[in-house]
């Protein structure tokens, strides 16, 4: 699985830690913001583009609160992005929402929890079935 990862300046340190952590797993990590020169709109937009152009299967964006990145990514048609701060939502949002990107707030979520959130997000699979009508609705929007 190919994972696009990105951050703004506030999320850079945690993004680097998550990148190092995930590189020890069987994932191909594509860092779309290699420096601290991006804001969260740029970071989330680059991640959304990587998903929409099929360069990556899933994406992880880190900014200080997660909120800005998640608002931004969802403005792109076909992108389903969740701001995640707990392990339960990390899994459920893939199972029910077919989420392709998660946003994590580096000022809110600690390193250990952020790693567990990434694990659960990347290991989960979409349930489909009755959930597909909601995903069809989301994908018709914006």
């Amino acid at each position, binding site marked *: 699985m190919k994972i696009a990862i990105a951050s703004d300046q506030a999320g850079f340190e945690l993004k680097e830690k998550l990148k190092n952590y995930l590189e020890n797993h069987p994932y191909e990590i594509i860092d779309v913001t290699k420096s601290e020169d991006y*804001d*969260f*709109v740029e970071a989330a*937009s680059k991640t959304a583009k990587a998903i929409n152009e099929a360069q990556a299967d899933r994406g992880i964006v880190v900014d*200080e*609160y*997660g*909120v*800005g990145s*998640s*608002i*931004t990514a*969802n*403005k*792109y*048609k076909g992108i*389903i*992005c*969740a*701001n*995640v*701060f*707990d392990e*339960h*939502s990390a899994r*459920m*949002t893939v199972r*029910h*929402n077919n*989420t392709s990107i998660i946003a994590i*707030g580096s000022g*809110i979520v600690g390193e250990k929890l952020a790693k567990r959130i990434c694990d659960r997000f990347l290991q989960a699979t979409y*349930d*489909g*079935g*009755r959930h*597909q*009508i*909601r995903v*069809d*609705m*989301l994908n*018709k*929007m*914006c």
Partner: protein
Amino acid sequence: MRISIGCDHIVTEIKNHVADYLTKKGHKVIDNGTYEKERTHYPIFGRKTAEKVVLGEADLGIVICGTGVGISISANKVKGIRAALVGDIETARYAKQNLNANVLAMGGRILGIGMIEDAIDVFLETIYEATPENKALISKIDSIPMSEEAINANHMFDEFIEKWDKGLYQD
């Protein structure tokens, strides 16, 4: 304030509690449903709640589903909406103060009533600070090209509901 609210069938009782809570505080509540516990689809209610805000019929929106994720995404996919999914009070403050968030989203299966009420209080009380930095980020979000199809679009999901009624979305 005029507050537009919406939820899915998982958290109808929590949304009703929030409606009562806001009404007791003197706010005018526009309840977009769902009103029952019968299985339905969160984008219907996220879109409706957001539309009232964009059209100026409500000042702010509050949306709740199981994790808060699905309904927050459907609100965000309406042009002009900045919906903040929060699990803590500090993020609710930041989202309003810095991003001028106009919809607050929460997970009814994630947060307890105490956190939900507290986050709502802080979200409503916090005033947006229109600094050059904040304005620049918001206008950058606004510049992402989006269709306005989801505004004034009560029938945009009909094709999917017809498929659902025919039993074409089976687990």
